């Protein structure tokens, strides 16, 4: 295993050049100019109320999204934790689908459901002969919150319900025997017992919504700005690099703190949940009240998760002259006044190529990292800071990464601004933690005695790796590879910085279509979103097929 020890330096070198170096460049741009310490960015941040408003809105929308998500997910979690019903495992598996859907796809889907040109509005306008769309949530905070709930509902549901089902209902029964009514039991017994899971889920949802980019940029329009979208606007539209860099620093600080909090809450979660497994406690609903509870939650879930995706598909087929594949065929046409200079479908080719390269890089680096990390188990002191180090890119927002790339990698020693490899590199950084998280548990599950047994039977280290280790991590690695591919296909935050205008990726192309006027552009955005959704769903099905248990999730 350690015949070529320098190989294990590769992941570190990769992180050093493509993660820490851009981050330090952000620090440099924010605080220094021509070698002098300056504080213009910082000053602007503190003195101008505009930035205070942005920070406030970032916190506000994240908090609101989190509270709404948890409030909606709790009853659903109850249903999943305590009842058996037909189709439960399929529904539970399908509920993670949003997690792999690209943000731009979700934004398109919500536009198609609740925007001015939505399926709903066009129907109502024809029906009641209206001049303007009656339901237009586009560019309101409501559509942002709804999209965030769509994304995070199932994350919260899964985390809370899997914890809940391991809690014995006997404690609630004991409380009832002591005279507590159902409301008292909920507030005084059940909710406090669920606290670790609720906390962990809330922190995770907060992180996701705090760093949400595509949803806010596309659905919120110019009216709404969070730290994340403001970094993009300052850097890409206004070329105000010091302010963008200072905002990035703020963002980095926030996410790191949140990540530390999450690691803490999650640690408590895993120690407590291993106490007891009680799936046998689940039963079929038998009272009318229970049936209504079940039906209401399942309806909400299917509506919440299904409606936007269904609206997306329907709306992509609905043209001014009835249902047709017009928008799809239009993807192959190179307009004279095109925003891409090539037929839009080339974005799919670009994305696929980039995703393949990303997959190869992320799998190689992820495998090396995971092998190294699994060996570092022998040195607890080293392991304590190596694990978080490898996961650090996960805590960094994609926009920050992309921004760091354009200011750090456009000049020697790493002048990659014009290089095609820049996009896959950015995607690899985003995907790497997921590959590691998929492979590392599989590696750690292999007892050291297995390769030792192989050695004692005469197998060389190479033979032992090939015959024993490889077959045992193969499917985990496949999951990691598909994850990397899917993440790359949908990556948006870093891509908007690093893709070149004439070779966009699918999400970048979708966002550009959405920002252009006209029903053709809208239709093509939805058509491409539908294609992208199909690709990501295929990836998701592959992952579900090969995933072992619940591992490698977050």
């Amino acid at each position, binding site marked *: 295993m350690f015949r070529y020890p320098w190989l294990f330096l590769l992941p570190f070198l990769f992180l050093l050049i493509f993660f820490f170096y851009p981050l330090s460049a952000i620090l440099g741009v924010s605080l220094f100019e021509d070698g002098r310490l300056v504080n213009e960015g910082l000053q602007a941040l503190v003195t101008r109320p505009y930035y205070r408003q942005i920070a406030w809105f970032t916190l506000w929308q994240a908090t609101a999204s989190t509270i709404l998500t948890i409030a909606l997910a709790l009853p659903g979690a109850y249903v999943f934790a305590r009842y058996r019903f037909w189709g439960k495992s399929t529904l539970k598996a399908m509920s993670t689908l949003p997690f792999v859907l690209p943000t731009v796809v979700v934004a398109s889907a919500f536009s198609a459901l609740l925007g001015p040109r939505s399926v709903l509005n066009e129907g109502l306008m024809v029906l009641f002969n209206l001049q303007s769309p009656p339901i237009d949530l586009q560019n309101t905070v409501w559509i942002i919150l709804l999209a965030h709930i769509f994304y995070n509902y199932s994350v919260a549901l899964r985390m809370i319900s899997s914890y809940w089902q391991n809690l014995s209902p006997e404690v609630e029964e004991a409380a009832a025997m002591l005279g507590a009514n159902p409301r008292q039991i909920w507030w005084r017994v059940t909710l406090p017992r669920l606290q670790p899971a609720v906390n962990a889920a809330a922190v995770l949802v907060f992180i996701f919504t705090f760093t949400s980019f595509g949803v806010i940029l596309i659905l919120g329009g110019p009216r709404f700005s969070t730290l994340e979208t403001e970094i993009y606007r300052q850097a890409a539209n206004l070329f105000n690099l010091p302010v963008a860099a200072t905002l990035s620093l703020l963002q980095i600080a926030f996410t790191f703190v949140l990540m530390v909090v999450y690691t803490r809450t999650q640690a408590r979660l895993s120690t407590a949940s291993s106490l007891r497994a009680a799936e046998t406690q689940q039963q079929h609903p038998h009272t009318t009240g229970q049936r209504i509870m079940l039906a209401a939650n399942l309806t909400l879930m299917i509506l919440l998760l299904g409606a936007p995706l269904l609206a997306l598909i329907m709306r992509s087929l609905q043209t001014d002259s009835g249902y047709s594949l017009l928008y799809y065929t239009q993807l192959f046409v190179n307009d004279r006044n095109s925003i891409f200079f090539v037929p839009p479908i080339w974005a799919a080719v670009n994305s696929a190529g980039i995703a393949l390269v990303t997959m190869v890089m992320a799998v190689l680096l992820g495998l090396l990292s995971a092998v190294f990390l699994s060996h570092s188990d022998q040195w607890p002191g080293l392991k304590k800071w190596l694990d978080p180090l490898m996961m650090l890119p996960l805590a960094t927002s994609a926009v920050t990464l992309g921004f760091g790339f354009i200011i750090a990698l456009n000049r020697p020693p790493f002048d990659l601004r014009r290089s095609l490899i820049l996009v896959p590199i950015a995607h690899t950084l985003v995907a790497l933690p997921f590959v590691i998280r998929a492979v590392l548990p599989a590696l750690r599950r292999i*007892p050291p*005695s*297995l390769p*030792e*047994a*192989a*050695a*004692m*039977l*005469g*197998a*060389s*280290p190479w*033979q*032992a790796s090939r*015959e*024993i280790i490889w*077959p*045992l991590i193969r499917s985990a690695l496949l999951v990691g590879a598909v994850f990397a591919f899917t993440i790359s296909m949908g990556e948006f935050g870093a891509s908007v910085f690093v893709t070149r205008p004439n070779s966009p990726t699918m999400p970048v192309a979708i966002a550009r279509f959405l920002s252009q006027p006209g029903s053709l552009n809208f239709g093509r955005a939805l058509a491409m979103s539908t294609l992208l959704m199909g690709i990501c769903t295929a990836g998701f099905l592959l992952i579900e097929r090969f995933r072992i248990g619940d591992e490698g999730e977050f």
Partner: protein
Amino acid sequence: MLSVHHFTKTFGDTIAVNDVSFSVKEGDILCLLGPSGCGKTTLLRLIAGLETADSGRLTIDGQPPAVQPHERDFGMMFQNFALFPHKNVFDNVAFGLLIRGMSDIDRRVAEMLELVALTGYEKRTIDQLSGGEQQRVALARSLATQPRLLLLDEPLGSLDRALREKLMIDLRLILKQVGVTAISVTHDQSEAFAIADQIAVMNHGQIEQLSPPEILFSEPRTPFVARFLGFSNIVPGRWLENGRLDTPLGAFDLSYQPGNGPVDVLIRPTALSSDNPDHGIPIHGTITAVTFRGRFYQVAFTTNHHNFIFELPAPKPSLGPFRGFLDSTQIWPLPNR
């Protein structure tokens, strides 16, 4: 056949194996017996080549073995059997043969499975096997390549009590049938007694005693060995000028060669009786507790401010003062401290 010369291995500040030397005869089964953390598994792994000794060397038939474990041609059975979970029984047993590129693998595997009474199990997957069956597959796998030396790390350690009792008899029979030289590690003295020709009792990284099982039991050399074998009555004693052994229970004339100075004395639990044996001395004390143990009553006996555990036959002894005799043939002065 195999000789270990001055093996020492430290992990950080702890000395796992401390200047250990011993030899094993061709065809013998040696058991390394000791409590957890005594260094017995580390010693086994040093022999296997899975760990590297800080100092000391190993010879086999007078020659040093290869450095890499996979070139040593030793077999090893691991504590949790370490069966390859993605391979079936046949492929597990055949693994070493395939690696060596041997011919006639089918026949050899069939032979091995017959040896461990698992004929017909070829296509079973590992998770379809019971613990006892897994143990036998692991044994078949490690014997299939006809290793020069078989190393066994707690070969029955992960099985439940009743199964262990049966399998330890089978294990010795199979090892003797094959005639392989073996070193087995265990913390269980009954397992060691059942399978070993020689037992090495280990403590704090050192071998305290290396003897055949019978000698170990009748003539433990140190208080640690005596206690580890389950003897609890060990009292301080002293050799007198006249060759008698003075203990808190009285002075004994013993048939052993007397020593001099202070000595730890083992009083076997069967030493106390109510009738006078041939070499008995009278004793009186108090019985403070009586427990029925099936074939005998276990009594807590206090005399001269010392507490002892003895075994008395029926009828049930009563609590309170007791007058009886101590059999001096059941008194064993431990040679080392």
